[in-house]
């Protein structure tokens, strides 16, 4: 089923504006500022609609150019991401694949060689050549290699060493440290389980107590925190839920409370998601919160409660991304007034893809030219590429046994 969405009525949006009369806390003041900027964007677009019926338009060619040039070269302002270079590869390769870009084999090979340089002799990947292995760049590198999808790319991953690295950062309570002596948080569990499941190296020993530890991070609000006791947060909630789904233990958490928390993170005026209660909208949560929905649907389906539609406002989220978060020169941004970067381009487009696809239905805002490829909500990689990687690594597992 295919369905083109229409914009929300601008007067309905205005009805939801936060009033300054009630209180004047810092949170409220800041929220009112953001709503003003966003509303201006929506009003401007509605004014242009009379002339151009194809709006809002996803600036695909501009985004491709921005991403392709970033893949090659980055300014010195990226120096602080020197220890996150596999991330940058993933943040670029994934949205390019959603935009349907095919890279030449020789170019893929160059990227593979770079990622191979980031792999540590002791297993796992570091943030750059010669850096210590760390779960976050390990996740990013494995995902990037899966997206490249060539045999050369798959062969880079030293699976026995990767397994050793994962075990070396595993804690007795089931959690994972991000690196040797590194911080322990729920990202660690997700990154470890994601790469282990994708490359078929999961063992009972690797995941012992992990689901129970993850569940201990669910807070009274319903979302998951980075560690027990901390505040529910979009990025961490995604990590917690995705990790539980990989373990097939999502029923251990309170998914009713999680769903209530998730739907409440969508902003009534902006249409995008916030990361935490009473914080501001940010386009990266289009995926971190938005991507949790398809995972929840799989849990609901087991109870015979499959929803008939997205349980968030898919139209409003697409409005926010398309109208408020595109840099006209390519690349996407957190919110109006912010600079573009690879991270927000990746997660805003991933969220857009989630919003456009519900089960087998498509619901696209603007024209069909705005449609992106689907993304697999567990790994945030295109489903066909996930399948290819799973098949490849699963066959290796069979070879070994």
């Amino acid at each position, binding site marked *: 089923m295919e369905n083109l969405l229409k914009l929300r009525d601008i007067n309905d949006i205005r009805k939801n504006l936060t009033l300054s009369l009630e209180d004047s806390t810092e949170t409220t003041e800041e929220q009112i500022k953001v709503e003003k900027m966003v509303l201006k964007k929506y009003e401007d677009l509605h004014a242009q609609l009379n002339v151009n019926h194809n709006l809002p338009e996803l600036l695909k060619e501009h985004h491709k150019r921005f991403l392709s040039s970033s893949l090659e070269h980055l*300014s010195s302002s990226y120096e602080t991401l020197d220890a996150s270079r596999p991330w940058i590869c993933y943040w670029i390769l994934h949205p390019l694949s959603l935009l349907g870009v095919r890279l030449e084999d020789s170019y893929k090979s160059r990227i593979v060689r770079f990622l191979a340089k980031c792999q540590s002799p002791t297993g796992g990947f570091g943030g750059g050549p010669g850096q210590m292995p760390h779960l976050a760049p390990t996740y990013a590198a494995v995902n990037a290699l899966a997206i490249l999808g060539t045999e050369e790319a798959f062969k880079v991953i030293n699976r026995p060493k990767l397994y050793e690295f994962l075990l070396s950062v595993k804690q007795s309570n089931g959690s994972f440290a991000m690196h040797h*002596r590194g*911080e322990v948080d729920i990202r660690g569990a997700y990154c470890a389980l994601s790469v282990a499941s994708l490359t078929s190296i999961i063992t009972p020993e690797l995941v012992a107590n992990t689901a129970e530890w993850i569940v201990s991070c669910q807070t009274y609000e319903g979302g998951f925190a980075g560690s027990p*006791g*901390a*505040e529910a947060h979009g990025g961490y909630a995604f990590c917690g839920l995705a990790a539980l789904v990989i373990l097939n233990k999502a029923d251990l958490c309170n998914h009713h409370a999680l769903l209530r928390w998730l739907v409440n993170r969508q902003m009534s005026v902006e249409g995008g998601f916030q990361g935490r209660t*009473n914080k501001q909208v940010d386009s990266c949560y289009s995926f971190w919160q938005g991507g949790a929905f398809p995972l929840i649907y799989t849990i609901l389906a087991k109870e015979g409660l499959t929803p008939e539609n997205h*349980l968030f406002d898919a139209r409003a989220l697409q409005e926010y991304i398309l109208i408020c978060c595109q840099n006209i020169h390519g690349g996407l941004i957190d919110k109006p007034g912010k600079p573009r970067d690879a991270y927000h381009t990746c997660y805003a487009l991933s969220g857009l893809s989630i919003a456009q696809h519900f089960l087998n239905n498509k619901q696209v805002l603007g024209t069909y030219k705005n449609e992106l490829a689907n993304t697999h909500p567990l790994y945030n990689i295109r489903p066909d590429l996930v399948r290819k990687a799973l098949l490849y690594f699963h066959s290796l597992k069979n070879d070994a046994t």
Partner: protein
Amino acid sequence: MADSSDDEVPKHVLFKDRPEWKDIEPLGEYDSDEEQPVVNIEYSAEFKDCYDYFRAVAQKREYTQRVLDLTDTAIKFNPANYTIWGYRFDTLKALEKDLRPELEYTKRIILKQPKNYQVWNYRNLIVTELQDASNEKELTALALAEDSKNYHAWDYRISILRDFKMYDGELEFATQMIEDDVRNNSAWNYRDFVIHRTNNFWDGVETDVIKSEIEYTLDKITKLMDNESAWSYLRGILANISGGICGSKRVNDFCHNLYYNKGNRCRFLLSFMLDCCFRDHEVTYRTKEGDERGPQLLARIKELCLELATEHDVTRKQYWMHLSKSFEKMIIKAELERQLYPSSEDEDSTCSCSTED
């Protein structure tokens, strides 16, 4: 205005021009210039010089005073480089240095870069080694004065409280932070953490602490209705008593009064009442009362969902409609089970906020 603090380096001398580094051959990232790395960052000459020397000494496993100084510079260029932080720690240990000055050092960096995972983690390592957390509350308070929702600062304070059992005065700290901004959800979450760590609620009794937390929260809700943080906190507190979300008469009356007498239709109130109805059904459907209440509660649930979906929370329309259907399916299933397997046990717990008198 530019911040002109004392640790800025006005004239940075490249390591290759320093006589004390003459014995080291700098080491690049790649074996030859032929390699064409991707995501190629345009490093400044100073950055590249510093990291080329770091790679060279790391390869030799040199742990000396000059390497300690080098890590200082490398951290300045990129405080997110976890490899450098780890190397710094190893160097300090190898040189058997006093770790205490690291507290001042990390404090400066934290206050400049409060959203950096590495520096907080490193500080945690130092504090754990020293077994002295006496400065940590002050430091997190300083970071929170700059950004009252800084996730790292709250998370760190929580870990310090837990590891060093330093709960004294923390409820007051939460109260103060909520006083400053009643919508600060991090402060509410902290309050929940402190309350649960300093009390035992396992027997389901509505203790004085719970009563006083309920009063505190209802007061905040009365002053600012549209505040999800306070409504969520209320759910969290009620989860500790045997009747759960509809186990407190005080709260039930409060909601009833808001909805029926004051005509309040705040979406958080409606959502709260909805969950009360469902919980009420869960508790009563196996009792004699359930015969009559079941259909009543289901009707009320559908009504509230419809009100939310069409009028008071249209953004979440799909969710409310889905919830309405799900509740209906679950309740019908429960009713069927009740008829098939009738129970003789009477459980006495009802909720007064859910259906109109």
